């Protein structure tokens, strides 16, 4: 009896087993580097294109705010769902998250925004509010006054003979300032987000 007890203790009470039993832990709590976390700044300069805010599916998750002399996107935790769309859509590569940027570079994918202007001619009264409110018009023709008339051909849209005419749809930045300034809800801006992939070269598939 006593010899078997001694045998038991000698067999099972080995120092390294006891140490393991008391102190062994599985791998410590680390988040792997490839995890797509909250977007972080890469250090590149934000040009205030606001594509991140337009693409973000979660209300209130991202805001482009003043940072020093320039702009910087700010992520609101608790709203952000870490989808990574803002990282993909930024034309300047301001944000990074997990392996998104590397994957995009490897596979040649990109997300591109384009904007379409739709004006309901039945609702539009030709007041020109949208033309004077548009910040791109302001840049192109600083002289444009109330009424939206302009002799400048660089503007996005202007009023000609009482009717609104869109000349340069491609210059629209999708800010929707015109939408809120229209008294009749006649102008609508569509933000179109399209995914592209460069064709893979022969032999690299």
């Amino acid at each position, binding site marked *: 009896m006593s010899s078997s007890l001694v045998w038991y203790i000698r067999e099972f009470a080995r120092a390294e087993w006891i140490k393991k039993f008391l102190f062994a832990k*599985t791998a410590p709590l680390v988040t792997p580097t490839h995890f797509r976390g909250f977007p972080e700044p890469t250090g590149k300069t934000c040009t205030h294109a606001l594509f991140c805010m337009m693409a973000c599916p979660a209300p209130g998750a991202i805001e482009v705010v003043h940072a020093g002399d320039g702009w910087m996107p700010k992520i609101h*935790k*608790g709203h952000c*769902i*870490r989808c990574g769309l803002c990282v993909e859509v930024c034309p300047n590569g301001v944000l990074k998250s997990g392996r998104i940027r590397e994957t995009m570079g490897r596979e040649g994918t990109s997300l591109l925004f384009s904007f379409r202007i739709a004006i309901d001619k039945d609702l539009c009264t030709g007041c020109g509010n949208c033309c004077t409110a548009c910040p791109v018009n302001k840049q192109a023709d600083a002289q444009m006054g109330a009424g939206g008339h302009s002799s400048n051909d660089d503007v996005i849209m202007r009023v000609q003979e009482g009717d609104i005419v869109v000349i340069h749809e491609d210059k629209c930045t999708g800010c929707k300032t015109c939408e809120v300034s229209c008294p009749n809800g006649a102008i609508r801006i569509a933000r179109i987000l399209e995914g592209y992939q460069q064709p893979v070269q022969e032999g690299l598939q």
Partner: protein
Amino acid sequence: MNILQRIKNTVRSRSIHVAYVDVGSCNGCDIEVLACLAPRYDIEQYGIYVHNNPREADVLLVIGAYTPGWEEKLAMVWEKIPAPKAAITIGNCPISGCLFDRKGSFVDPPVKKHIPIAAEVPGCPPRPTEILQAIMSVRDSVFANWEEEHP
């Protein structure tokens, strides 16, 4: 602090019992809490046990955007937990309502206006490591020095 208090502190911070309530979630965060129990993350190696009985619990995990059905009931669950206790919210839902907080919906986030919250874990859903880190941080801030702060 006498030796008895020291022992109490140590024991309390080494044996955390967790109860969780889902106050209206999509089930995504519940799955991540479940993943904490699996061997991959193994919550029990840190002395954290899931019992789901508020009477036995130290930590309450709150998941979800607070639907009207939880009016008063969540506070009732919270009051049933004996002190020392802490509540942790998991995911975006208890902070902002996430995808449920839209015009015309009945959810009433944030949860912290209904019961006191010690820690919030953002993410939709958060990783199990982030959930574990939150529980470990309240363990250190609430349970490990409870005796000094509540003599």
